[in-house]
């Protein structure tokens, strides 16, 4: 079956621009996560959705970052006024159900480069 997919795989933008990153979770997975991974680091949590609502957005670094999941499936991470420090790999993961111990399945990530 299809895994978690993310588009685009690579995104290069200029400082100050707006970007959108898309995540298609595994069909039927109600939980969706966004993480950010900087070079040489482990992934850092950004936001968690259970269904359509953001159950936990405590990891978003500031108000330039926003994410939506309007129909409880596809999610879009939106970054306004991008800064060079936003350059990283943005990973999406999905999980079946609301049991926190169950496995999170990760997508291949979107590599964002802000020039």
């Amino acid at each position: 079956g299809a895994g978690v997919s993310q588009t685009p795989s690579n995104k290069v933008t200029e400082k100050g621009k707006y970007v959108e990153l898309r995540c298609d979770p595994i069909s039927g997975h109600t939980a969706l996560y966004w993480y950010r991974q900087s070079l040489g680091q482990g992934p850092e949590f950004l936001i968690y959705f259970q269904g359509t609502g953001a159950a936990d957005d405590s990891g978003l670094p500031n108000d330039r970052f926003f994410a939506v999941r309007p129909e409880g499936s596809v999610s879009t991470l939106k970054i306004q006024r991008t800064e060079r420090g936003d350059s990283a790999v943005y990973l999406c993961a999905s999980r079946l159900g609301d049991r926190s111990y169950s496995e999170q399945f990760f997508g291949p990530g979107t590599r964002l480069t802000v020039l």
Partner: protein
Amino acid sequence: SQELEQSPQSLIVQEGKNLTINCTSSKTLYGLYWYKQKYGEGLIFLMMLQKGGEEKSHEKITAKLDEKKQQSSLHITASQPSHAGIYLCGALDQTGANNLFFGTGTRLTVIP
């Protein structure tokens, strides 16, 4: 928040050798996950440990969680080039937490 320390940061071994990667926390781990990552790819789930003293194996990889649930080890027997990659431990820091906190990873190179 949870902090996970992984050691070593990088490891180079000859094919066929055994190796161990460690993941240590200052707090009790309520769920410990091991993932493997290759460049340009997402994280591949290996194993999850939940109970103190638990041990799980899959093919040539064995993961253990100590009795105090503050340290986990990942052991690879008779390493192969296909084992190369970055190994990440992730943990839930409290019961009911939904997101994972990750260590910085261990980069494994296996020389044929």
